[in-house]
């Protein structure tokens, strides 16, 4: 027997947002990837591996970042990973069409002494912009391999893998570019570096001393904190402060601007001037430019926005109901009869009820009710993200979002909320400040997700009329805006502004979109199904133990008194906490009929639906909220929604009664 020992190479992918990093990642590792979170963080972590000859290459996809400062959690994660995990190779994915800004990160990676390979992606876009890049010369100047790539077509991937192995084996030697600042800054950096080496040896064993000095000069919060915690660090900081003041006096600018300006200077003077040539000005507007013009147009842009989102909902509902009926058919007609006849033969009655009524039905509910709507939603969302439409939507909505104390980026989580509140809640992390995250979390849980849509369309839409169902969405938007305005007044602090890149439009790439969609659906199924199954089992237990009536009786003052609903309707309302669509399913189950008109008036249907629409978020959403905001805030948000929903239900009941319905 022959044992194959594969050599293991650890590779990290680093790069700015929108450079096609995840496409390269997918191309490299294909289906082997595992998606999770960075430990203790809410930032997504994707890793995977590929086998290449005798090598097992582990690839980790670092979050997309513009710089290695401490503006966001992503930036800290990326640089800490490079420093502490010490990957064998760092592949810096670079957008050839925006080389200047991309190299800004590259310089900082050099300063971290990362063993770099440059993947010069989007060569086709650069070419269409009339840019010619002397790849060989760029590689010579930077002292590391530069691989030209067009990742969406797979071009350059093989070469990249081969280069990774060559560098790992020492067949290609790296002699990384030395970043040298202007005389004044350089002087200070080397003095601080010497002192840091002498007095803070422990820190220097982890980070390059030169890097520490630059970060100290840049007033990097994270490094300042690390140094100030050390006994000798305080003295170093005094010196640094003095240097900063001196430099600011000489240059007449803040130290951040001085160092950034010098970096850009190095990029332009020492690198780009030698390797990037403008062959011809792009005379004809590219398709991307024209799309950009119309989708950000002050009138047409909004029309397109409305059309796009109308189209999305249409697609989700049409696609969703098709998938739902298909899956329904498969389970109801094909699987269930066989399973139940098999199990009823072997199991005694109460156990059969629990297993079939609870466990199996719960599992089927996941597949037939949630999945059909979540799948098309994520599919569309991935297309919007990959093409670059999202920033345009954020741009158009920024002014309106500001009214409720948020900015344009908040539009994305709010839209996500219509699919599922769980990713919406997790998506709140894209907001920069704590205040905005909190405010946005409040709002996203009020957005009717696809599960609540099942209730809205399944009750009001079906029995009263589709137009009334859609009207409820409008009511919902008004309530959300109102709550937003209110919270913006109440919460301390002031709103933060928007700073965001507007990337070019890109042609979506089917494989990347499918992978992304599947990754998200997978993680949703993972998180939600256990809750649904457990809830379903508890439910059938309560059923078997004849507890339905006593529980309903306890809640009757609220349910029939305030809301004017049938007493029995309180129970599904509570169980809606597990999964929103359970509210409808249970209502039908409890009434023993799928025609609600026999048991509820139109008024009661409307009140029930409105209450469900705003009622406490489902367990999975609460869990996501706890993860993002902590127990205290999650509880506060949940309690708030309970009060709000009962108030609105009561208000609907009262006003409909008053007008004589």
């Amino acid at each position, binding site marked *: 027997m022959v044992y194959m020992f594969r050599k293991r190479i650890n590779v990290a992918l680093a790069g700015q947002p929108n450079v096609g990093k995840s496409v390269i990642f997918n191309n490299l590792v294909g289906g082997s990837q595992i998606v999770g979170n960075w430990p203790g963080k809410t930032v997504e972590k994707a890793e995977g591996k590929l086998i290449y000859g005798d090598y097992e290459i582990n690839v980790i996809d670092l979050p997309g970042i*513009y*710089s290695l*400062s401490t*503006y966001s959690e992503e930036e800290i994660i990326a640089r800490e990973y490079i420093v502490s995990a010490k990957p064998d190779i760092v592949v810096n994915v670079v957008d050839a069409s*925006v080389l*200047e*800004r991309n190299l*800004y990160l590259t310089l900082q990676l050099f300063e971290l002494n990362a063993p770099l390979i440059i993947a010069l992606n989007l060569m086709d876009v650069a070419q269409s912009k009339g840019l010619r890049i002397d790849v060989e010369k760029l590689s010579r100047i930077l002292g590391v391999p530069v691989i030209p790539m067009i990742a969406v077509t797979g071009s350059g991937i093989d070469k990249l893998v081969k280069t990774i192995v060559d560098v790992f084996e020492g067949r290609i030697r790296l002699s990384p570019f030395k970043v040298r600042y202007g005389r004044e800054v350089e002087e200070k950096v080397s003095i601080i570096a010497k002192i840091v080496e002498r007095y803070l040896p422990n820190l220097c064993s982890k980070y390059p001393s030169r890097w520490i000095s630059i970060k100290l000069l*840049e*007033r990097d919060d994270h490094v300042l904190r690390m140094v100030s915690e050390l006994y000798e660090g305080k003295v170093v900081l005094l010196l640094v402060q003095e240097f900063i003041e001196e430099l*600011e*006096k000489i*240059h*007449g*600018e*803040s130290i*951040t*601007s001085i160092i*950034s*300006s010098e970096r*850009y200077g190095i990029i332009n003077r020492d690198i780009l001037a030698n390797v990037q040539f403008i062959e011809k000005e792009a005379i004809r507007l590219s398709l991307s430019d024209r799309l950009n013009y119309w989708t*950000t147009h*002050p009138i047409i842009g909004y029309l397109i926005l409305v059309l796009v989102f109308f189209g999305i909902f249409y697609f989700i509902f049409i696609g969703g109901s098709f998938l739902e009926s298909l899956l329904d058919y498969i389970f109801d007609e094909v699987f269930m009869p066989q399973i139940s006849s098999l199990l009823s033969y072997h199991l005694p009655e109460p156990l059969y009820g629990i297993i079939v009524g609870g466990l199996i039905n719960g599992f089927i509910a996941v597949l037939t009710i949630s999945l059909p709507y979540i799948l098309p939603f994520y599919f569309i969302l991935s297309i919007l993200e990959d093409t670059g439409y999202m*920033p345009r939507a*954020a*741009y*158009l909505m*920024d*002014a*309106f979002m*500001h009214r409720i104390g948020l*900015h*344009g980026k908040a539009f994305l989580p709010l839209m996500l909320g219509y699919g599922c509140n769980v990713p919406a809640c997790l998506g709140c992390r894209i907001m920069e400040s704590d205040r905005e995250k909190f405010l946005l979390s409040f709002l996203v849980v009020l957005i009717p997700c696809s599960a609540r849509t099942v209730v809205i369309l399944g009750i009001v839409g079906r029995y009263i009329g589709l137009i009334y169902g859609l009207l409820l969405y409008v009511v919902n938007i008004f309530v959300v805006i109102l709550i937003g305005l209110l919270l913006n007044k109440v919460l301390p602090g*002031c*709103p933060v*502004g*928007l*700073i*965001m*890149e*507007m990337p070019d439009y890109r042609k979506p790439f089917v494989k990347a979109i499918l992978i992304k969609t599947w990754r998200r659906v997978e993680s949703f199924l993972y998180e939600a199904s256990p809750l649904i199954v457990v809830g379903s089992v508890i439910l059938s237990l309560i059923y078997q133990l004849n507890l339905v009536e006593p529980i309903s009786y306890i809640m009757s003052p609220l349910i029939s008194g305030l809301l004017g609903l049938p007493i029995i309707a309180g129970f599904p309302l509570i169980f809606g906490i597990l999964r929103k669509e359970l509210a409808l399913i249970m209502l039908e189950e409890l009434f023993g009929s799928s025609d609600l008109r026999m048991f509820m008036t139109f008024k009661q249907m409307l009140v029930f639906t409105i209450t469900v629409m705003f009622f406490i978020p489902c367990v999975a959403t609460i869990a996501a909220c706890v993860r993002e905001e902590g127990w205290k805030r999650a509880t506060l948000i949940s309690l708030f929604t309970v009060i709000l929903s009962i108030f609105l239900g009561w208000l609907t009941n009262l006003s409909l009664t008053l007008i004589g319905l």
Partner: protein
Amino acid sequence: MGYDMDLVERLMPKILETIYSMTLSGIQPTIDLISKKLSIPPLFVNEVLKLALNKGLISGDNLSLTEAGRDFVLNYRQTFIHDKLIHGKYDLENISSGVVHEHLKYSHGLDDDEINSLKDFLSKFDGNVEEAEPLTNLRPGERGVFMYAMGGYGILRRLSDMGLTPGIELEVLSAGPFGGPFILRVRGYEIVIGRGIASRIYVKRLK
């Protein structure tokens, strides 16, 4: 002398400001130079300088500012920025000197960090402060040179990470509808900046 004393007082800050910016950019100010730059008759400049000398704002022959004169100019710059750029008008008497810091803090919600960075900028800025105007004044298609952003270190670092460093040329591509954000082209790519931040970014308009 036939000059209106009120006018002399009013022109004092402009002239001292000019002396200050000349000194910073390494030019030895003379009455002729000042007169040419501001298109004010030399005799009038002389009159203003006499008053400044009396008040101890400048010293002797080489037209250099005293400590008090420096403070006077910095205060003028602050007030100017404040009035023109924040309130959109320019009226020096509006705010008496010395309370600008408090005013910025309590009436405009700027924190100490922001005010200090503004002061920092003002004391080092070697151009004529009157050329600065907020980015929000520019219309789509107009270009400007980024001078300064008022804000904490976080915002400054973010802007410079995104390529917006002092002295860089930018073009306004779109001034957001309904009070929305600005789209700028900087270093060959586009960034979106919310109106709130855009109004705190000062640029020198390019003709």
